[in-house]
């Protein structure tokens, strides 16, 4: 063992992940090849909304290399026949709220699926974040049956001996569609007479969620100045450079499956896929191998993972599906998608008295794991670092005939920062105040005891004035303004723009007041196991699942410091539910503040025992 420096944390340790990555020896999902493995490809709807009137796969089945072609009807009996219908029940989210939203649903059935009975039509969904008692949860078949609801919805699956042949055969499947009216615009979707994504709900509104503190109407009545704006948050495509992919391998010994999947959340996937596929949780092993980025798009459980497992079960061989880039645009979740209406009331000095926020948030065609919860993370951030007494927030989730939305970098919170900073500029303009000054007047006084924000959460300490003054000094704000003025007067072809933005974020998702208020009180914990081995080496098992963050190095640093060993004598395991049976995975900047701290605490327990 080499002599350890005083501290590895903060010591700039070269990454332990790199040797495999720079030499082309990493283990990506698409690198996994198993004996007898077959390849699946998906036929996807070109229509955003249509009835499927017929599917003829007979010609496709005759193509070279094709083993079988499955339609939605063919697979209808393959899913869990009576699931808890309820990813919320198995992911630590609030069960009771979900049961109320689902009405009469049996939760007593075991996870066996042996008699091939049709599933309960009303209960198949991926959504695990039931944000409201009245949340409308659309039925979501992995392979669509009667109706497709977005361009990219799967309508048939080909299984063949190689990927080229599986792709070729898609061309031979004949599907007759009867196109239906489509709604893609959020404002149109909530107007009366709009086409409906899910006819059975009688509305495109999935839910409305409110938060209010103080008396915002009174604040607006008393105000000297009010400003309002409507801001649009366009959708975006997360576009991880490694697309999604899955290999499901039947395990002949345990009668279960090992599933390799490019995911941020093997533990959540295990719980949800067990319910969806009717494979007992204890017989499902999920492995996230090396994962090429996620950005929230792999914080999810997808139809293709379900399909791979049920086909591996049906055919008794490993099934691989690798998403191509075009599919990634259509079938992996999108981010953002909001219409933001924000209003601020202020007194004659530009001091904010109240703020009203009203959102329309695009759900897309179905609810994925976190879809309804994402815009609500913003509810707590619209006040930013500005202090006032009266606040109201209301968000309506809206179904559209588009790819489902879900988490993407910051997830709901950057959207809030954008809107609040825009409206602060509008207030500055209206009051003819410098944009720095209007912010300065609304900051909290410097504090080192927790303050409660208008959204009802606490900030533990802050000195925003000092930060702002330092920024203005570093940027030579006065000088920039003078230069801007000079260019305007001279009509310079290169003009100068100066923008201001503050940013505060709730993150590091752990058991908290905010998660509890959003119906996810059981979520957010993390696991670490630290073990001294007979050889003197240290084994760390973490429930976090890196996909570029470098946890292997960082967790080694933490354990090495706590135990007084060299960083290279620590081995970190992650991303395999057989090795790390418990964990809450990696998203929302939570891995270090929750998982890294768990490694530190577990290491300290080892020291105490020694």
């Amino acid at each position, binding site marked *: 063992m080499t002599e350890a420096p005083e501290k590895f944390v903060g010591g700039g340790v*070269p*990454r332990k*992940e*790199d*040797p*495999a*990555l*720079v*030499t*082309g*020896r*990493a*283990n*990506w999902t*698409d*690198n996994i*090849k198993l004996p007898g493995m077959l390849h699946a490809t998906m036929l996807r709807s070109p229509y955003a909304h249509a009835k499927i009137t017929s599917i003829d796969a007979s010609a496709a089945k005759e193509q070279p290399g094709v083993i079988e072609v499955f339609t939605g009807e063919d697979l209808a009996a393959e899913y869990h026949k009576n699931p808890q219908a309820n990813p919320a029940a198995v992911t630590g989210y609030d069960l009771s709220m979900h049961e109320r939203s689902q009405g009469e649903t049996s939760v007593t059935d075991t996870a066996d699926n042996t008699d091939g009975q049709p599933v309960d039509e009303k209960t198949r969904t991926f959504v695990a974040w039931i944000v409201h008692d009245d949340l409308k949860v659309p039925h979501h078949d992995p392979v669509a049956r009667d109706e497709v609801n977005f361009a990219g919805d799967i309508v048939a699956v080909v299984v063949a001996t*190689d*990927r*080229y042949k599986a792709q070729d055969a898609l061309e031979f499947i004949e599907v007759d569609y009867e196109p239906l009216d489509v709604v893609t615009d959020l404002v149109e979707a909530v107007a009366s007479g709009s086409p409906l994504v899910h006819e059975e709900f009688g509305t495109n509104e999935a839910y409305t969620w409110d938060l209010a503190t103080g008396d915002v109407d009174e604040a607006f009545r008393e105000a000297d100045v009010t400003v309002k704006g409507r801001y649009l948050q366009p959708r975006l495509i997360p*576009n*991880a*450079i*490694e*697309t999604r992919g899955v290999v499901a391998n039947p395990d002949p010994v345990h009668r279960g499956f090992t599933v390799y999947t490019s995911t941020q959340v093997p533990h959540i996937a295990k719980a949800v896929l067990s319910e969806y596929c009717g494979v007992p949780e204890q017989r499902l092993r999920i492995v996230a191998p*090396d*994962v*090429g*980025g996620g*950005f929230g798009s792999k914080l999810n459980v997808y139809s293709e993972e379900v399909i791979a497992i049920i086909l591996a079960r049906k055919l008794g061989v490993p099934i691989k599906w*690798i998403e*191509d*880039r075009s599919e990634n645009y259509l079938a992996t979740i999108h981010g953002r998608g909001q219409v933001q209406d924000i209003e601020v009331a202020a007194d004659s000095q530009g001091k904010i008295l109240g703020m009203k926020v009203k959102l329309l948030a695009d759900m897309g065609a179905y609810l994925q794991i976190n879809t309804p919860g994402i815009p609500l993370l913003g509810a707590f951030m619209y006040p930013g670092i500005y202090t006032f007494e009266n606040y109201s927030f209301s968000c309506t989730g809206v179904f559209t005939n588009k790819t489902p939305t879900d988490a993407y970098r910051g997830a709901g919170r950057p959207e809030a920062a954008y809107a609040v900073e825009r409206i602060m500029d509008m207030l500055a303009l209206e009051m003819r105040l410098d944009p720095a000054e209007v912010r300065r007047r609304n900051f909290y006084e410097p504090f080192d005891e927790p303050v409660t924000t208008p959204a009802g959460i606490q900030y533990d300490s802050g000195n925003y004035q000092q930060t702002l003054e330092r920024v203005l000094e570093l940027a030579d704000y006065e000088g920039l303004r003078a230069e801007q003025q000079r260019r305007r007067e001279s009509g310079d072809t290169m003009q100068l723009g100066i923008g201001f933005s503050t940013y505060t974020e709730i993150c590091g998702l752990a058991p908290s007041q905010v998660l509890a208020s959003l119906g996810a009180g059981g979520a957010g914990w993390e696991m670490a196991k630290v073990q001294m081995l007979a050889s003197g080496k240290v084994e760390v098992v973490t429930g976090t699942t890196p*996909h*570029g*963050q*470098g946890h292997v190095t960082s967790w080694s640093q933490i354990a090495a410091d706590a135990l007084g060993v060299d960083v290279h004598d620590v081995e970190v395991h992650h991303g395999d539910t057989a090795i790390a049976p418990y964990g809450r995975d990696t998203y929302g900047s939570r891995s270090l503040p929750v998982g890294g701290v768990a490694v530190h605490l577990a290491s300290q327990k080892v020291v105490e025992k020694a």
Partner: protein
Amino acid sequence: MRRIQMTVDGSAHVAEVEPRLLLLHHLRENLGIGGVHTGCNTTSCGACTVHIDGESVKSCTVLAVQADGHEVTTVRGIMDNGLWHPMQQAFHEAHGLQCGYCTPGMIMASISLLKEKPNASEEEIREGLEGNLCRCTGYENIVKAVQLVQQHSNGQSTAQPTAAS
């Protein structure tokens, strides 16, 4: 089917392939080289970059039959007797990677770039690598890694100073 022969990372390989098979898929599926990565299959991202006869090319842009008779080098073939290539070392030292999926393509494109322009300026490095995408957006350190190799090689051969950014 066409019979083709190529040298890959120093080993000769003969194969029967469909004329439409992409070189990328030949390397990955037939030769089992998992260090060449599929990012887009459409020549957009550069994750599959390899060298053909020493020149960098996106292997999803080339049919396997077009590489018949040529010498292909992947990120697995640039080490010297088990020692990392200076570009591999520089990516490691400069923290030029996060998830690492774009990295083999970045390394191969960077080697090719410095072969053509050993003293490329920062701007020329950025331009030279514009066909390779990093979705972790780690471009700053990727550029620094390339500059690190310039510094090392300049230190050894010429007196040309290269400013670190």
